[in-house]
């Protein structure tokens, strides 16, 4: 389009960042939004390499890397690729999924409290998994397997959340309120199942509820990887309308966003990410809540960045898992550590920072 008056030279600081234009492709690259995901990625790779080497049979980082590129030897190959890698990969993918889902929910609802933990979706997974564990003598639920039961529970609550919130569109506040109601119903169900459970079942159910990467296999990693291969591109595709959805429904529509489609896409993709993540490793809490908040404070800008949130989430889960397996005297479920590591860091950023929310 042409502009009426000849445009004066752009004010020097009109858009902080470097403009990139290659053919029909154009965009603004802001170094902080590039450096943070890159740094998170490097940290993630290092943590994963260290983590792959740690265990009853320690392997140095160079040997780990050699194995990963296919130059390893028999015993190391087996230990790394069959015993340890599934655990790390599940942790990585779970962190990625939860980070992205948290960023989607928080941006959409304009509310940092909108996380799959508070919205009841992870609790729905817990209902499914605990039912599968506790009712295993009953047979019907147990036949499904715990991950599948958890996936079912999470998706069921997710769909309920969506249906109950939808009123020709989704309002962020309504989403949070409906989510909290669903969360309390699911909590009551889990408590009821646990009080009626055999003590041994109750103990293993409890470990599952905390979120654990123990004894993960490729069977846990593959469904999650496939789901993310579909969901992450959708999330990135939705990020452009997300930037405008933040302005509220009227402005977003005024700017040409197909409101209902965009809202449904964002919420359903987020629900999908959470459901598959939680079914693979249990409700590793706090990642989806805290990581997007950390990411937005590191990158600056007005909303949690999707990519940085995902990578930081992955780094947090893999790092927390490494700590539980090495530093601590006994292997705790990773979910305890993500909260213990993430929460103080967020508090520090909050105390230091000026901004109040999101």
């Amino acid at each position: 389009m042409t502009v009426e008056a000849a445009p004066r030279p752009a004010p020097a600081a009109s858009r902080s960042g470097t403009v990139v234009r290659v053919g029909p492709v154009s965009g603004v690259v802001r170094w902080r939004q590039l450096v943070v995901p890159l740094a998170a990625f490097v940290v993630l790779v290092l943590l994963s390499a260290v983590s792959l080497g740690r265990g009853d049979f320690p392997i140095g980082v160079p040997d780990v890397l050699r194995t990963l590129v296919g130059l390893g030897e028999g015993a190391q190959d087996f230990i790394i690729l069959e015993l340890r890698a599934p655990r790390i990969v599940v942790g990585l993918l779970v962190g990625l999924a939860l980070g992205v889902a948290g960023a989607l929910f928080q941006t959409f609802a304009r509310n940092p409290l909108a996380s799959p933990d508070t919205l009841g979706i992870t609790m729905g997974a817990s209902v499914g998994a605990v039912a599968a564990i506790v009712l295993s003598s009953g047979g019907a639920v147990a036949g499904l397997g715990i991950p599948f039961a958890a996936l079912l529970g999470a998706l069921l609550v997710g769909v309920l959340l969506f249906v109950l919130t939808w009123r020709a569109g989704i309002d962020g506040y309504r989403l949070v309120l409906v989510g909290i109601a669903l969360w309390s119903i699911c909590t009551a169900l889990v408590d009821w199942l646990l009080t009626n459970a055999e003590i041994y079942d109750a103990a293993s159910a409890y470990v599952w509820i905390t979120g654990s990467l123990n004894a993960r296999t490729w069977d846990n990693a593959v469904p999650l990887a496939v789901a993310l291969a579909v969901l992450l591109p959708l999330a990135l595709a939705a990020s452009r309308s997300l930037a405008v959805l933040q302005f509220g429904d009227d402005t977003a529509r005024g700017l040409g966003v197909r409101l209902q489609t965009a809202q449904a896409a964002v919420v359903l993709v987020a629900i999908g990410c959470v459901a598959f993540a939680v079914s693979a490793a249990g409700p590793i809490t706090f990642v989806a809540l805290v990581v997007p908040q950390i990411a937005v404070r590191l990158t600056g800008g007005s909303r949690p960045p999707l990519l940085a949130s995902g990578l930081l989430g992955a780094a947090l889960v893999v790092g927390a898992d490494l700590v539980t397996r090495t530093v601590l005297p006994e292997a705790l479920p990773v979910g305890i550590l993500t909260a213990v590591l993430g929460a103080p860091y967020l508090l520090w950023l909050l105390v230091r920072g000026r901004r109040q929310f999101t």
Partner: protein
Amino acid sequence: MTQTLKPETAAPGGRVRLAAEQVTLAYDDHVVVRDLDLQLVEGSFTAIVGPNGCGKSTLLRALGRLMRPTGGQVLLDGQAIARTPTREVAKVLGLLPQSPIAPDGLSVADLVARGRHPHQSWLRQWSRDDEAVVAEALTWTDMAELADRPVDELSGGQRQRAWISMALAQGTDLLLLDEPTTYLDLSHQIDVLELVGRLHAERGRTVVVVLHDLNLAARYAQRLVAMKDGVLVSSGRPEEVLTEQLLADVFDLEARVLPDPVSGTPMVVPVRRLR
């Protein structure tokens, strides 16, 4: 697309850009606007006035396709707006809601840049056009100095300027504003209306604005539309619409109408509330 500059105001009887045809608007069962007809011609500056709850903001929402009529239809350039892709509408018609929300930490430059959304795609996120138009919008609205400031740190008047700057960057021929002067002190109200007036006069925008202040509406708009109880009561030049009889009928107000000593437009001096 090309924007045409229309410094002179379009003669009455110019091309109709936006029209409401027998529009009925309702929230659930509660009818707010009934069988309303309104035509907005190219290059006009229209202010919709009326008492609280008369349906003027609702009408504006329907004109901006934020609300679907339960009866009748809204036409944009002769096409039913409800059946036009929202993105295509967004290239022609911009709107500024009553209390727009800017997320924390968003800079003025980023806010104004979002006005380019309908012209962008996933790959084409910041073309030379986008950059030029946004820079120009910032300069034109005197916001270039504040471009890097977060919107949430601005004063009310500055914030409204930033939003108008965004609407300008959107590059639409038509602009709908819902009470853009709410919560502003008098001098900032004037400031905002001067800016909107310049958008109309210098940039040829067709402007529809919902306003509470009758004197300001009469001063800045070429045409007033008075509503009461969801019905269009009177429409025309300010001196035709703002009569003592109309103020009694529509606003239940006994008032004198004098010529504004500054602009010569009608000026309402209230006496007392009737009934």
